């Protein structure tokens, strides 16, 4: 990648997300073992680590999909430890999954229309009461417009009326990311968003992520592609066997011996 858009920051001054001493065990396996880290507001932060390091589990702990056995999560100044996923999402912390969770027997557009928060028509009585329903219909038309625009941005608008189950793996990841954007989040946790996405679209996606960053969004990104991490993240957090191994600027991480030992192997 030619473009270097990273802003050098060694320390986190204004954290939007803080995980402290997170712990999760599954039977005999300690998946996350006291991980603590912070994510700078408005940054793109990378979360890396070998397979099984506990990255996805950490995402699940932060977003309420799993309840942590110990530790705390603070988002935007408020403690969200153990809150329900919907509550956390409503506060503006939205995630995507490593294996895309599209809603298969719903069309791509229907999937997209689920994104926007607090829709009028999510109340039964507004949806069924004759005159009041007109407001719902009006809102639906506005949301529909946003849904189409976002689909165009992600270049899957030609699939808008297909069932999500008929999408390819890469297209599903795109759909999930597009849908997450419609929730109007403050921060996005993306679990390998580029996996299975073709290189030219990957480039566009990264551009888009930078655009969103300029608009004030924050990102925490799990990614195995070192080029992406090195060229697009301001800070990198490294996990290994459930623990935090290192954190810092991409360049620092690249030179960290423990990281090379555990993760980069020796090919750097």
């Amino acid at each position, binding site marked *: 990648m030619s473009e270097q858009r990273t802003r050098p920051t060694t320390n986190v001054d204004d954290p939007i997300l803080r995980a402290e001493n997170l712990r999760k065990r599954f039977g005999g396996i300690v998946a996350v073992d006291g991980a603590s880290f912070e994510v700078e507001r408005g940054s793109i932060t990378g979360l890396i680590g070998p397979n099984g390091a506990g990255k996805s589990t950490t995402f699940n702990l932060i977003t309420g999909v799993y309840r942590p056995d110990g530790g705390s999560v603070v988002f935007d100044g408020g403690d969200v430890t153990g809150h329900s996923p919907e509550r956390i999402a409503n506060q503006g912390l*939205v995630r995507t999954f490593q294996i895309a969770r599209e*809603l298969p*027997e719903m069309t791509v557009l*229907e999937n997209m229309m689920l994104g926007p928060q607090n829709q009028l028509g999510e109340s039964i009585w507004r*949806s069924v009461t004759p005159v009041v329903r007109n407001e*719902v219909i009006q809102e*639906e038309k506005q949301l529909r417009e946003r*849904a189409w625009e976002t689909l165009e941005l992600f270049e899957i608008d030609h699939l808008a009326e297909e069932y999500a189950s008929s999408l390819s793996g890469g297209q599903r990841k795109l759909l999930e990311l597009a849908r997450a954007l419609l929730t109007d989040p403050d921060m996005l946790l993306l679990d390998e968003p580029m996996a299975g996405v073709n290189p030219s679209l990957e480039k566009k996606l990264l551009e888009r992520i930078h655009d969103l960053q300029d608009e004030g969004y924050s990102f925490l990104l799990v990614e195995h592609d070192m080029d992406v991490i090195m060229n697009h993240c301001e800070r990198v957090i490294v996990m290994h066997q459930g623990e935090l191994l290192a954190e810092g600027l991409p360049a620092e991480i690249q030179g960290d011996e423990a990281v090379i030992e555990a993760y980069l192997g020796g090919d750097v």
Partner: protein
Amino acid sequence: MSERTIDTDRWKGDLLLLAKIVAATYVGFASLGLVTGVPINEVAGFLVTVTFFAASFALVTLALNLHWGYTGLFNIGVAGFMAIGVYTMAVLTASPDASPAGLGLPIPVGVVAGVLVAALVGAVIALPALRVRSDYFAIITLGFSEIVRLSITSGTLREIEVGDRVYGTGGGSGIGYTPVDSVIPWLFDRPGIGLLGDLLYGIGGLVGITTSIINRLLYALVIIAFVVAVYALLQRLAYSPFGRVLKAIREDEVAARSLGKNTKYAKIKVFALGCGLMGLAGILWMGSRSLVTPESFMPVVTFYIFVALIVGGSGSNTGSIVGGFVFAAFLWEGPRFLRTIARANLDTRSPPTIYDAALELAAFDVMPLVGYFIGSLDEFRWILIGVALVLLMVYRPEGLLGDRKEIAAATDLSQRQGGESDE
């Protein structure tokens, strides 16, 4: 704004489709009956019975579709919620002098209370039950429905003495009360409407149809009115953001929650609503007899409703009505009509066992075999349902209308204001 209103368009099309199916079935049965010499009164009686069951099944199937078809809540305790509706109504409206005694309240009060109690019980069950995994949820609902039925039958609730009156469920012998279909004779006792009644009875008399059949027809129309109202309600729900959340729960609840949808709340609401509708269906269907007993609420009733839903197409409200109708006409009442025809035309004495029938078949007499089948029709209905399900699973697993894309949105998503689509 030139955008077509999606609601009206679709409803018209669906109504037409339904009308075609119903008309074809009725014309088919009626001509079959008349050609084979079944008296007109019996043909009319049969069609009215089909209409009654079709409307009743359609109503429960709509409610189940809300649970299972839309939200993916595997409720196999449908019969229990119907029982709660009917028994609540029976206890509230039965005469205080009867045995067991009731409260003697007016029927409309009983109906509304039956629906509300069924919905309330649904909400109470949902609170703990929806916390468990979906397969356990199914077991809980089945267990609940059996608990309801066995409690009604049990000696403890059979007779409850309060003062000098004996209340209770009446155990196995049930509760007697004024049936809800007494609304028709009641209406015809009113001054103005009475004339209409006389007119209808008069027309019936001319073509040879008894007043009781006319009463039953009119009551079936009352249920149909409820079906229309419930259908309109559920269609609005289905084509709304709320319906979208329900579908998302069915597809992947974790994904829905991660998008900020309060799925727990939605599930409780929808479960209570569906249970209330099941109570309503129970009242209109089984409450139209003057006696309610626990046998009406065996788990097999739930099974029937599932068959109707699967036949029609799970996830489609129109499909639920079609399924209810097809089930009532072809699997439920149809075989009985064939028996009527056979009895009117053939010498169908029924030999005691199929072995005896086979023996006579060896003597080139097929009639005893036919007679045997006709005589054991209720058992063969089971085989028929089984065969129908197998054929459906092979040739049309998504049900008659289940392959339709019914988009959960309050507006046509494919149209855009500023976009390239036609405006």
